[in-house]
């Protein structure tokens, strides 16, 4: 006779009732205005804005992680100057709110009206700042610099999580330095880096909505433009919300498979993927 759990049943019933009530509200409350929602969900200007959001996210992530790698390497280096510079960069760019930083970059021309490339204290070529840093450029610059600070810390934490014995074994075998890093340390560090990196990426996806302050036509800016015109705030916010949810879901699926790849050898047997589980259930 297995133990009875009456409170489990009561809790389940309560949660189901609340969920049903919420679903009923979603379907019947005219405020949600689902016809407007469906009308705009695949609307051309919304899709174009969505594309821009995806571009900003991908470019920001790639540039952010490219910047994070040297930052992590510098902070871990034995050179005190490099370590201090990296520490300071991370301190500053983690401290400044993204929105403040974006406005700063957008107004760079106010601070330096010309930028010059050349030999330090020697001759060079100069450009007008506002021609060089467009609104999109300022947004991408701000996002990437912000991401790099966090990515650097995530990569560093991953590298630190690798057991000292692994470094020793690689050194004792005389593996070349590059090979020690790429073949032995990095793949093991990836296990710790990936979940945090995925978190950062999702966060970045949502942070792109902040660049609306620079009047860049990404998803959030675009729905604001539309509801500014027709006054249907809630359904249009839902358009943006659902798109962010869909993109995050895609990223989560990607994360699952990438993490699985790097779990080789870490667990005795890999658990089946949801897809494999489904196939097994159908066959049974």
């Amino acid at each position, binding site marked *: 006779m297995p133990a009875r759990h009456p409170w489990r049943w009561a809790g389940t019933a309560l949660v189901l009732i609340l969920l049903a009530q919420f679903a009923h509200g979603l379907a019947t409350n005219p405020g949600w205005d689902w016809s407007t929602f469906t009308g705009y969900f695949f609307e051309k200007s919304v899709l174009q804005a969505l594309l821009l959001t995806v571009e900003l996210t991908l470019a920001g992530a790639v540039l952010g992680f490219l910047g994070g790698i040297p930052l992590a390497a510098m902070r871990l280096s034995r050179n005190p100057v490099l370590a201090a510079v990296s520490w300071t960069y991370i301190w500053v760019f983690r401290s400044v709110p993204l929105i403040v930083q974006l406005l700063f970059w957008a107004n760079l021309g106010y601070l330096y009206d010309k930028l010059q490339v050349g030999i330090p204290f020697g001759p060079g070529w100069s450009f007008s700042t506002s021609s060089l840093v467009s609104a999109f450029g300022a947004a991408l610059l701000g996002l990437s610099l912000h991401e790099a600070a966090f990515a650097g810390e995530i990569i560093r934490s991953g590298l630190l999580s690798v*057991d000292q014995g692994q470094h*020793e074994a690689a*050194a*004792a*075998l005389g*593996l*070349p330095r590059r090979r020690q890093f790429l073949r032995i340390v990095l793949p093991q560090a990836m296990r710790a880096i990936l979940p945090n990196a995925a978190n950062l990426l999702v966060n970045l996806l949502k942070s792109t909505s902040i660049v609306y302050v620079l009047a860049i036509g990404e998803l959030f800016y675009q729905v604001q433009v539309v509801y500014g015109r027709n006054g249907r705030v809630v359904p249009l916010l839902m358009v943006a919300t659902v798109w962010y949810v869909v993109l995050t879901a895609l990223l989560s699926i990607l994360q699952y498979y990438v993490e699985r790849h790097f779990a080789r*050898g870490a667990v005795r047997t890999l658990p089946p993927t949801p897809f494999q589980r489904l196939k097994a259930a159908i066959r049974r």
Partner: protein
Amino acid sequence: MIELTGVHKSFGTLEVLRGIDLTVESGTVTVILGPSGSGKSTLLRSINHLEKIDRGRVRVDGELIGYRQAGDKLHELGERQILKQRAKIGFVFQNFNLFPHLTALENVAEAPISALRKNKSETYERARALLGRVGLADKADVYPRQLSGGQQQRVAIARALALEPRLILFDEPTSALDPELVGEVLDVLRDLAAAGTTMIVVTHEIGFAREAADTVIFMDEGRIVEQGPPARVLDNPRHDRTRTFLSKVLS
């Protein structure tokens, strides 16, 4: 031949090695005994420059390890040269330190391919043969965590052998193993000894020292207290400290 002369090493104010002089002939087995904290592991790690020594010289087959001598000054070698020297000296760790994300075969083949730039397919073939030599021919494609401790240590020994080293250093190779798994690793060590491999083994396995060692060394407080053939050091120790240690280990 391995020669250590006047080797000193301190960690901060703690002097771990206080002048070690030691000669190990090629093709012989040397077992180092001693209480914990006596400097055994540090001595072993200084032979392949995993530990930087403060004074003295370490020579393997006449080659100065970790340094280059100019006049009477020593200059530490660059990392690349040190790595080259290490590739000629096998090292087996107490905790195996196998690479968990690589299969047993990949673990064994890694160093010959990337450190010695050997041909890939030949190396894999040889790695398979080495796994066979330590009794693990059927475990080539298995990841370390799927193996028992004794099997992992045998893979680690195969990994050290893959470099065809001049000598192999063993740092308490059986200390992390369950008692019933110690025998299988010691069997491999005995086979290696019988095949004429130059070995220096830090261990607490007195039985192994008695039957396999050519020389037994007893260390205490950073010095070599006595050394000689096992029959003499183990059965007729001259020093009180050796006697006290042996009575504790054998009881």
